[in-house]
């Protein structure tokens, strides 16, 4: 179980995430919605350690992770994908994934601190990376460098890296943004499949309400950094604050 307590960050005078306390049980997919700039990505950044909280704590299964650097949190089981694509642009698609697979390894080849074995000898890593690429339908381009991929494929790779980490908590930040209607289902199917594993916790930031409606077990709403609604999807979507501030229905 992932839990944040009074998680807060200030940028100068601006409070981007304001005392958000929330816990996420395994086996549920929680959608996080809210207007642009509500603090969704920032909230993810605080959980995964890219930003240091001004106050509050993050804990996973009761273990406090607040002081840890991002790498340690990832190893503890917090995995995330980024909203704006953030990959290793001049390495091949396969190597990108392989690096992520390697990062999860324990034992003698632990996280690449091994200076003396030969990388390509680790066949297991390659096989696993291949499997993941097949899952996101990127196998055909595995030897291309990431920089030459179209935008949509880069978004898929972003998700592939997250899958490779095999975390306990998956944080998706608008995984299908910029992906066309034919491709998005590949990713959504993946997420659906993940949902079936009851040990996993999934957090999903998404602006497409049809997707949210279909996938979410629970929705929380962030607005101006604050947690303003939390509950059943239907009920939350119907709430006035979502209708007005987010969907802009009142105006229309």
């Amino acid at each position, binding site marked *: 179980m992932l839990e944040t307590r009074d998680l807060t960050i200030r940028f100068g005078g601006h409070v981007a995430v304001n005392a958000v306390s929330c816990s996420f049980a395994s086996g549920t997919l929680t959608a996080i919605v809210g207007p642009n700039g509500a603090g969704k990505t920032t909230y993810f950044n605080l959980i995964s350690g890219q930003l240091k909280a001004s106050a509050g704590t993050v804990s996973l299964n009761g273990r406090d992770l607040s002081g840890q650097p991002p*790498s340690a949190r990832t190893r503890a089981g917090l995995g995330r994908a980024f909203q704006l694509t953030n990959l290793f642009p001049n390495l091949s698609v396969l190597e990108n994934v392989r690096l992520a697979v390697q990062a999860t390894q324990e034992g003698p080849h632990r996280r690449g601190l091994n200076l003396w074995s030969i990388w390509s000898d680790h066949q297991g890593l390659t096989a696993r990376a291949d499997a993941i690429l097949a899952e996101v339908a990127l196998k055909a381009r595995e030897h291309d460098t990431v920089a030459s991929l179209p935008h949509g494929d880069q978004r898929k790779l972003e998700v592939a890296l997250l899958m490779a980490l095999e975390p306990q908590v998956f944080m998706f930040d608008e995984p299908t943004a910029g992906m066309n209607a034919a491709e998005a289902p590949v990713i959504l199917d993946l997420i659906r499949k993940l949902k079936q594993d009851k040990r996993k916790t999934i957090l999903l930031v998404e602006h497409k309400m049809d997707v949210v409606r279909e996938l979410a077990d629970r929705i929380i709403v962030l607005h101006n950094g604050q947690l303003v609604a939390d509950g059943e999807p239907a009920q939350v979507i119907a709430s006035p604050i979502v209708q007005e501030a987010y969907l802009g229905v009142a105006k229309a």
Partner: protein
Amino acid sequence: MSRVLSHDLPRSRWLAVILVALLLGLAFAPFLFPGVKALNVAAKVVVFVVLVASFDLLLGYTGIVSFAHTMFFGIGAYGVAIASSRMGAGWEALAVGVGAALALSFVLSLAIGLFSLRVRAIFFAMITLAVASAFQTLASQLSSFTGGEDGLTFKMPELISPSFEFAEEPFLGASLDGRLLCYYLLFVLAVVLVLALLRIVNSPFGRVLQAIRENEFRAEAIGYRVVVYRTTAAVLSALFATLAGAMLAIWLRYNGPDTSLSFEIMVDILLIVVIGGMGTLYGAAIGATLFVVAQSYLQDLLRMANEAVTGVPWLAAVFTPDRWLLWLGLLFVLSVYHFPTGIVGRLRARALARR
């Protein structure tokens, strides 16, 4: 074979041919190219291959731009120089010198590696530039220890000194003496060190370094503690540079601030990495050979060119050996123009295109 090269094969037929030629050329240099000058050039090539390869680990693989690399080169050379001149010629002196130098390099590179995390890339580069120049000043100021500007001249163990002759008659034009043994000592050392580096860059560790070079932020996010890898790379590269410095001192039996610490050498290293192709150790080897040979024979070449054009005064003024630096400068500019991805990059791209 493939294992010896850590499965990092040349991936281009031409590249393979060049590398083999290079290896054989260096292995038989004393017999193929007789003469003192040729042997000196070959030895310098050998030292520079190690030095540049060690720098490539830092620059090409990890993406850290540091101008302080000659500092470690200098430490290695001074280690041997100071120990040999204080303790007298001998293997113990060598061991002590190299050991002390490695220890000092370790500490300094650790500090620098950690500091590199505090400031961003270009600033770090400029700081190392300043630190390196300060270190050079320091080396010439501590003259009671380092011989100051004048440097130190010292002797090597008998076995690898020129005075040691193990056969009267020259063999294939090369005199069989300690100098020859010394050359082979360096050559074997260089081969071992380069293979070790090749192993390191092709290990899981090496791959993480490349990931950090590409996108440090993401490398951290997928679970690699960037500080650890970066610092380790900085330390390793410093240690290899230190060894290269020791090799230089062993060969020259002399060391001084200009010989191993000067900014000029740093720039040469940079140029070699770029000519050869960043992020490929093979590039370091080819680049080093090309550059050192060009640099050593540039003046001779110009002398010939100069004689050819003596009739045309202004041409002669440009082609005089005194203006060899002009041509070196041009070499800098042109190689950046024509080898954006280095020689290795070029060759590999050709091989790919052919496929």
